[in-house]
Every structure is written in structure tokens, then in C-alpha cells.
């Protein structure tokens, strides 16, 4: 009998998937992505192929993701949306992403949002998380996300809604915020003010 | 031992070895022989496995000792390991290299009734002479005709459409290949897209389709089918080369298709059409499947002819696998039921009397 080969690609795809699986299972906890590829590429390769579709807000990233065979579609039809950074001007595209239906809540979009450098200026938001995967309450802080994201996220009622993953490409980390997580914005302040 | 302490793995290996010891060895000649001498068996296995690979099908038949459900499973499990590299171009009936094309609807049809290869009108007599050393009669060689027959034939249904007996072919925009529903990759929901239904019938268990189709024909169905057209053919599989962009032929596969019509169907008083096609040549399955296709489209089909019933219960690998899974130990679930049974007995039955008022427990789920 042959020896099954654990190829580098296989290893990278699996590690990226496991990071996402634990990110979804333990919302609010950072998970490590494989270091063998830029974070967004590793995520794309782990999830995308010619049976899926994506939208990328960044031209260069869109070209790289297209190599997986997945189809580039507008945000209202894509299964996976990638925002290497999320600024106010992206909210219009984001707002169109599928939230699923009561019959098929799994048809909702999965959204990847890049967080800029943690030392970047911008608003820091403190979030209190509750729900499946969270043992009690969990407080986290995220920086560099437009406030509008939370308004949009709150528009869908569970079990509809987006499964959001925040990505820190610099550190190669991912944090999950599935639709099942209840988010309370406990405190917001801007460093600029 | 059934639940063998530490012996599990060894028991499995010995059991498998014994199975193979009780049948003959598998040789390249055997596989070649199965492929050449038993094409209808090979076709049936390939059709149910939805994998066109005669040599692998012959190997699967040999390796399973002829247990067809095992052979289909072997092929399907192999299929799971193969990536989807591309999509072939759509085929039309007119482009098929047809070797047999008959219609029961008319005495003669445009292009003629082509009997082709068939045992339909043979005498089913075992040729015992072949058991001994005697040479087979030479006359079985088919004589060559003076000129070759046409490889292409028009559809009987097209003539009927021209006459207004059949509803026109529905027109819709061509789908991207990725958008065509695929029953092997999608979640099956009801009402199912027609693609799912036809794909499920194409890979369904021959015996299962026959049983349900026969039930319809015998009278549980609403309609009496007429075989409008039955076709055995070779199809050329064409693709666009992903790099050069040129069209090329991947090879030829054996395919068969059947159309049945009824004037008692949903389009009455027009004719209603049922359709089925599969990889390989398998006439009995297709006539039954086309009948079921028609039944499933009726407004209120018999419960055994609804889409969900037909598609779930004719799935060769799921039905056979689930059936034999009952050989596995179930003592934990059984113990859980016994616990309830004992409680009910102690509640309803005192020590010395037998009031027997408690009906047999029925659980809400298996």
C-alpha cells in the first residue's frame, strides 16, 4: 500500500481551515494562520475552487483569488467576500452581501475583513461577546473598523446573517464572529478625539 | 468473535482473506474477459457508479466476486478520489452514433426502425453445447451489409412536436456548466431541479427503478406508457482544451436513452413525455426510469412515485449500505429502549396480574 503524501499545499489548506474552524468555535479568540502564504491567499486557497464564488474589494487580491478557479461575482451574489481593509466606502458593497434565508441560512455570505496594523490610528471598539463558543462573556477590542459594519450586521436576525472573520495579515491571525455571536458595543472611543 | 477484544483487526483481515479464497484468482485475463464478454454487466455497473471506465468496472466486478452493489461501491469510492478537471460540451440526440433506435408508437418512423443489437426476439435457450469441448456455431458472426447504415437519426418526438401532439421543447438560456445542478455535489431538495431528477435516475439501482416503474405500469400509476423511442448509441465526448482553447474529442462512451409518452399525463389531451438516459446500455432501467420521470411530474402521484420517494429509495449505494448496516452492533441503542420498556412494564404490570393495557411502545425516532 502507498504512503499518503501530506503535501505542503495540503498542510497549508488544512491549517488555514483549522484556524477558521476554531475561530468559528471560539468567537473572539485569535487563531494562527499558516505562515507559508499571505493570510488572505491562504484563506482563499483553503476555501475556494471552481464550485464557489467570491468578491474581493481589492483588484490585486481578486486576481490572485481567481487562480483558485472560483468565479468573481458582484457582492450580492458571492459566497465569500474579501475586504483587505474595510473603510466607509466599502460599506455599500458589504451591505449587499447575502444574509441567507430561513430555509437556507447557510446560503449567507462569509466575510473576511482585514484589520490594519494594530497601532494604526482609528477608532477602537470594545465588544462584549456572548453566545455559542463563548464561555460566559468575553470582552475584546478591535481597531480600524467602520462603525457602520455593526449597524449592518445587526440588520439580520439569527439564524440569518454573516459569518465574519477578522484577519490580521501582519500577525497571521484570524478571529471569528459567526452570526450566532451576540455582540454588545460596550464602549467606543476614538484616539483622534 | 463479533466484538473481539484486541482481535478486531486480525478478524477483519482473516474474514476478507476467506472471502477471496472462496472465489478464483483475479488475473489481467479475467478483467479483460469481463470487459469483452460481459459488456452489459460492465455497462450496468458503470451507469450506477456514474463513472465511465470499462476496465475499472471490470476490475470492480472481479474484485467483488460479482456482488454488484460492492462493485458499484468500489467504483463510486474511486470516483470520489478523482478531481473534476473540466466540463464536456452538451450532447444532442441527433449527434449520437446510434446503433439501435426503435419506436413502439408507430409502425415506421423517419429514418426507419433500427433493431440493432438485441436479444429481444431471441429464443432464451441455454446453449448447452458450449459447456463441452464443441466449437460454437460459426453462424453467430453477423454478416456485413452492402452499405453502412446512417449513424444519425432524427427524434420521433420532433415529428410529434411538428404535429402539435407534444408541447414544444422548453427553451431556456444555456447555463454555465458550473451552474448545472449536480446531484453528486449538491444538496437534493424537493421539488428537485429536473437535472437532479434525471441524474438520479441515470445512476439509480436498476432493480430499484424497475420495481417502482413496474408498480406504475401494473396499475399503481396514473398513466400507461408507450415507448416512443429507445436508443442505444455511442457518444463522442468533446471538450475545450483549457490551455489551447481548441475543441477536441476525449473519446467515445456508450450511452442509451428512452422516451415514453402517454396521453393520460399532465399535458392531456396532448401527449406527455417521460425521459431517461444513462451511461452504458441498459434498456430495462431506462424504460422504467422514463415512466417514473413521467409519473413524478403528475400533480398528485402515487406516494411511491413522488420525487422524494423515487430518488431516495432507488439510490443503489445508500439503500444497500443502509440495509447491510443493520448487521452492525446496536446494543447501546437497544439498551436505551429496554430501559424504557422495563419502566413501562413496572408501571403498568403488577407482579401477578397481566392487565395488558399498555400498547407497544413506539419511539419517535430510530
Amino acid at each position, binding site marked *: 500500500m502507498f504512503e*499518503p503524501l*501530506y503535501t505542503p499545499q*495540503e498542510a497549508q489548506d488544512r491549517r488555514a*481551515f483549522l484556524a477558521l*474552524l*476554531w475561530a468559528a*468555535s471560539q468567537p473572539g479568540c485569535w487563531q494562527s494562520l499558516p505562515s507559508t502564504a499571505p493570510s488572505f491567499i491562504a484563506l482563499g486557497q483553503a*476555501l475556494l*475552487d471552481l*464550485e464557489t464564488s467570491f468578491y474581493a474589494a481589492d483588484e490585486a487580491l481578486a486576481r490572485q483569488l481567481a487562480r483558485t478557479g472560483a468565479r468573481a461575482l458582484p457582492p450580492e451574489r458571492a459566497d465569500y467576500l474579501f475586504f483587505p481593509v474595510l473603510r466607509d466606502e466599502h460599506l455599500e458593497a458589504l451591505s449587499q452581501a447575502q444574509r441567507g*434565508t*430561513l*430555509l437556507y441560512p*447557510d446560503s449567507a455570505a462569509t466575510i473576511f475583513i482585514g484589520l490594519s496594523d494594530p497601532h494604526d490610528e482609528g477608532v477602537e471598539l470594545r465588544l462584549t461577546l456572548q*453566545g*455559542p*463558543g*463563548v*464561555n460566559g462573556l468575553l470582552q475584546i477590542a478591535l481597531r480600524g473598523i467602520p462603525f457602520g459594519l455593526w449597524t449592518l450586521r445587526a440588520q439580520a436576525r*439569527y439564524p440569518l446573517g454573516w459569518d465574519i472573520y477578522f484577519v490580521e495579515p501582519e500577525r497571521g491571525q484570524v478571529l471569528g464572529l*459567526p452570526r*450566532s455571536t451576540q455582540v454588545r458595543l460596550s464602549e467606543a472611543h476614538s484616539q483622534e478625539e | 468473535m*463479533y*466484538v*473481539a477484544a484486541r482481535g*478486531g*483487526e486480525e478478524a*477483519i483481515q482473516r474474514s476478507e482473506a476467506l472471502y477471496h479464497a472462496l472465489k478464483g484468482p483475479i488475473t489481467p485475463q479475467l478483467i479483460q474477459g469481463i470487459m469483452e464478454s460481459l459488456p452489459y454487466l460492465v455497462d450496468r455497473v458503470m451507469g450506477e457508479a456514474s463513472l465511465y471506465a470499462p*476496465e475499472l468496472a471490470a476490475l470492480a466486478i472481479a474484485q467483488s466476486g460479482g456482488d454488484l452493489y460492492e462493485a458499484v461501491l*468500489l467504483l463510486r*469510492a474511486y470516483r*470520489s*478520489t478523482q*478531481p473534476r478537471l473540466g466540463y464536456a460540451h452538451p450532447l444532442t440526440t441527433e449527434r449520437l452514433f446510434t446503433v439501435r433506435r426503435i419506436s413502439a408508437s408507430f409502425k415506421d418512423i423517419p429514418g426507419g426502425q433500427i433493431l440493432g443489437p438485441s436479444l429481444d426476439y431471441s429464443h432464451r435457450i441455454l446453449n448447452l453445447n458450449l459447456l463441452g469441448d464443441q466449437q460454437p456455431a460459426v453462424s453467430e458472426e453477423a454478416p456485413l451489409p452492402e452499405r453502412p447504415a446512417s449513424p444519425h437519426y432524427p427524434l420521433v418526438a420532433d415529428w410529434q412536436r411538428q404535429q402539435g401532439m407534444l408541447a414544444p421543447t422548453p427553451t431556456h438560456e444555456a447555463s454555465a456548466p458550473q451552474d448545472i445542478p449536480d446531484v453528486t455535489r*449538491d444538496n437534493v*431538495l*424537493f421539488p428537485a431541479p429536473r437535472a437532479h431528477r434525471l441524474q438520479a435516475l441515470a445512476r439509480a439501482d436498476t432493480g430499484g427503478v424497475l420495481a417502482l416503474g413496474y408498480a406504475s405500469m401494473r396499475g399503481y400509476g396514473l398513466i400507461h406508457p408507450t415507448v416512443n423511442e429507445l436508443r442505444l448509441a455511442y457518444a463522442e465526448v468533446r471538450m475545450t482544451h483549457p490551455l489551447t482553447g481548441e475543441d477536441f474529442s476525449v473519446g467515445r462512451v456508450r450511452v442509451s436513452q428512452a422516451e415514453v409518452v402517454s396521453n393520460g399525463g399532465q399535458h392531456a389531451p396532448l401527449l406527455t413525455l417521460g425521459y431517461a438516459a444513462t451511461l452504458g446500455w441498459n434498456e430495462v432501467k431506462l424504460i422504467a426510469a422514463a415512466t417514473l420521470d413521467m409519473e413524478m411530474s403528475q400533480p398528485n402521484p402515487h406516494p411511491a412515485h413522488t420525487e*422524494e420517494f423515487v430518488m431516495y429509495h432507488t439510490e443503489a449505494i*445508500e439503500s444497500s*449500505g443502509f*440495509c447491510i*448496516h443493520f448487521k*452492525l*452492533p*446496536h446494543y*447501546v*441503542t437497544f*439498551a*436505551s429502549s429496554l*430501559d*424504557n420498556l422495563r*419502566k*413501562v412494564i413496572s*408501571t403498568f404490570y403488577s407482579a401477578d396480574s397481566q392487565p395488558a393495557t*399498555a*400498547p407497544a411502545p413506539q*419511539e*419517535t*425516532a*430510530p
Partner: protein
Amino acid sequence: MSRLAALAKPQTGYSYAFMDAFAKRELRRRMLKAVAIPGYQVPYASRELPIARGWGTGGLQATLSLVGPETVLKVIDQGADDSVNAANLRRFITRMSGCQTTTDALQATIIQSRHRIPEEILREGQILVLQVPDPEPLRAVQSDSSACHHMHADADYGQMWLVLYEQLVRYKRYIQGASYPSLVNGRYLISPSPIPRWDTPKLHRAAHLTILSAGREKRIYAVPPYTDVRPLEFSDIPFQVEDQRTWADERTGARYKFMNELPQADGTARYELSDTGYAEKLIAKQRGQAVTIGRTYYDDEGNFYHDGYLKPPVIPEQGG
């Protein structure tokens, strides 16, 4: 005519973990959705595997999508590591992935199981994969799966309450055996696979991740860590686990763990622990060997580790 073997490239074997990259990616995508919508049955394109359908192919596909060389795998059937079916699945997974195996629930990173959850409390980071024959808890009240799908969409579980009520009227107790229907995260009703009622509470706010996968029925669903799982029960008639309080394991004397009842020729019965990995460790400990035995979901007095989750039984009156 060319033979296939001549045309094909040489057989170099199968992909890592048997399934090709497409199949694994698909299953992984569905698994992420399943975790994000606890208890919702995510449809997936279940592939045929070299194991008969209905013999754990759903669990197997989940495990094969998760497994890696560093995985420590435990496979059990009816609680037993050494049953032929568990041995067969374990043999296949290790052959295809090169992972390590164990019979110790504490050592395992992935546990694939048919019909049982181990007795020792699983911890964060462990994954329990349960094989599911029928994922649909509503099957008994609605055999049409599309209708069931609509009922889940509407969280319309009234008929299930009716069934429980009828059971109480006729038998003065719930008579559901294994696969006791349970509400996950207050939203979706699941069949927790045919685990005994003894194991159902172990899913409630568990530290580990549970993946439930039905290969034949092509559905995958999940109970993430720290997620509410409540068996259906009326507030005045509590759900009850199997009553085995008088049974003790004949080799170790252990009690208040799920037991196999072994009928004897003289009309009596003997009892043994269903969880063979746990039994093995108890025996080793009694022989003085160094072994780590974890805290169990039920202690030696039968108390469940989440205080107050299981309520004392209401004893029905005698009579019929």
C-alpha cells in the same frame, strides 16, 4: 484499442486522507457553516468512500477533512475501541493519514464515535465526531424531508411536543430511547445521533466541539463549545437518563457509568462498562499502574457535573 492503463498516468495512490482536495474543501466549507449555525443541518455533497454507506461514512468524511499527521485519533463503536467496525474505520483513517491512535479519551485530539460519548469529560480543543444514521429529529412526525426542512425554518416543533404529550398520556413517561430530540442554542431541534439518553446531557455547554455527520442523508451539523443543548421536556415531567443505578461493572466495580447488559444462561445478567477505554484505565489503576483518569461527567454517586441540569425523576403512579 488502447487500454486505459496505458493512457493514464501511473497510479501514485490517493490524495492525503483519501478524499481529493475538492471534496475536502467542500466539506470544510460546510463544517464552518454548521458551527456558525449550531444545530442547523447543513446539506453537503457526501462522497462515496471505501466503506459501505450507512457504516459511518458521514463521520468518516468529517474526520478525513480534519485529520493530520499530528492528530491523535480514537475511534469507538458502542463505546468500544476494539469492535470490528471501530477497528476497521481506525485502520482506514490511519492508513490514509498516518495519524496516531489511542484508546484514551484524554489523549485523543479527534474522537470518532458511533452511538456513545466517552465517560471522561472532554476538554477544549478536542473534536468529537459523531456518526449519524438519520439526522432528522422530525422524521417520525413527518417523513417528507422537504416538509421537515420547512418546519426547521419556522422552528415549528409543535408536533414533537404533541408526541411527548401522547407518550405521557399512554405510558406515564417519555419512551424515547436513544437519539433523544434536543434543542440547540434555543433554535434548532437536533437528533444527537443515537447516543443513549445518558450521553445527551454531555453535549450541553461542553468544552469540546461536536460535529455530527450523516453521510447517507448528506447533512452535517454541529454543537460548538459552550452551547446550550436541552432535551425536549415539559417543565413538570423531567427528561430522564437510563436508570442503571443498581448495575456495577463486574471487573472494576465501577458504577454510574453506561453499562452493557450481558444476558446469562441462568436468566441473570452481568454488566460491563460500555466505555472500553475508560474501563482499560480503571483496570490498569487497580493493578497499580500509573495512569491518568479524568473527571467523569457523572461522578461515582451519579451526580451530573452541571449542577441542576438533570432534575430528579418524577415517579409515575402504578396502574394501567
